[in-house]
């Protein structure tokens, strides 16, 4: 069944179609929300709300205007931005620490210690990016959206999106180079 068929069924109150859509899109939405919010609890709340909105507002999705995944990411983006504006744009230490542990679990599965340290620094640098740059990076690099689709999700012009992602990549590359320089110096001293 296509997204259109499933959404039509959801409009008619078909819960099995809803369940299929949840299984198809849950990971993408939760990962995006996690990257924007930075903690597990809020990510789960927002993800749940995204799918509740899918159920309630299914009739308002227009397949001619946007793909379903784009529409869902836009809902998630708006909910996350609202949340960040209400609760402040910066993550507290209490939120960052558990997130470190969660990311470490993923990183520890592969690579040596130096690589892990470098990746952790990069992860920290991502979390410190302004919200628009972080969103742009998540949508274009991780979610695989085109610049045009990512701009539609973030409700900005393509030019603004490209400016955000360029700044994000420039900043992360500088972080990575700095980490490499530090590592090189440490090896020289050692």
């Amino acid at each position, binding site marked *: 069944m296509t997204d259109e068929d499933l959404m039509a069924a959801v*409009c*008619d*109150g078909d*819960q099995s179609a*809803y*369940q299929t859509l*949840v*299984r198809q899109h*849950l990971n993408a939405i*939760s*990962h995006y929300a*996690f*990257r924007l919010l930075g903690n*597990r609890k809020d*990510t*789960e709340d927002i*993800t*749940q709300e995204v*799918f*509740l909105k899918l*159920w*309630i*507002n299914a*009739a*308002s999705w227009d397949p001619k205007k946007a793909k379903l995944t784009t529409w869902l990411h836009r809902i998630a983006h708006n909910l996350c931005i609202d949340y960040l504006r209400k609760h402040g744009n910066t993550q507290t230490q209490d939120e960052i620490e558990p997130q470190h542990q*969660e*990311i470490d*679990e*993923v*990183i520890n599965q*592969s*690579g040596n210690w130096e*690589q892990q340290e*470098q*990746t952790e620094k*990069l*992860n920290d640098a*991502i979390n410190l990016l302004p919200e628009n740059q972080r969103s742009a*990076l998540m949508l*274009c*690099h*991780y979610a695989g959206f085109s*610049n045009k689709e990512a701009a539609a999700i973030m*409700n900005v012009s393509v030019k603004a999106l*490209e400016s955000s*992602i*360029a*700044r994000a*990549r*420039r900043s*992360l*590359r500088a972080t*990575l*180079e700095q980490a490499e320089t530090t590592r090189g110096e440490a090896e020289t001293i050692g």
Partner: protein
Amino acid sequence: MTLDEFTHILEVYGSDAEQWPDSQREACLHFTKVNTQAKALLASYQQLDAKLNTIAAPSFPGLEQRVLTQSLPAKQSGLLDSIINWLLPEADSWSDLWRPATAACLPLVLGIVVGNFYSFGITVEDDGFQYWDDELLMLSFNEYSGEQQ
């Protein structure tokens, strides 16, 4: 192709040549072969992308079940709900704003139509003169001199 243009493409589209604009891909690939700085820059962004790929979001065990089992409101199916949905489109669909605007104008139009057909007890006194001009003309035929005598 200049180094600045190539840098811009790497920053905007990343190091994967498949993501670069079709119109510039060949030029970019050629540039990396002839320009050592471009080659080094590409390697640097490839390293960044590779590092970014090692960072994955954690899994959320239990979230799927939580979303699947959340209580969903009953679907709106009444005529009134359909009308309301039609009249009040989503906030971000500006193209449908004519619907609530039309709905807002309806009472005005209805008022004009009803007022045109029904008087609701308000009558205009009709004494046979349709115009003030007619009335003035009739007054001019009166004999006022006799009254003075």
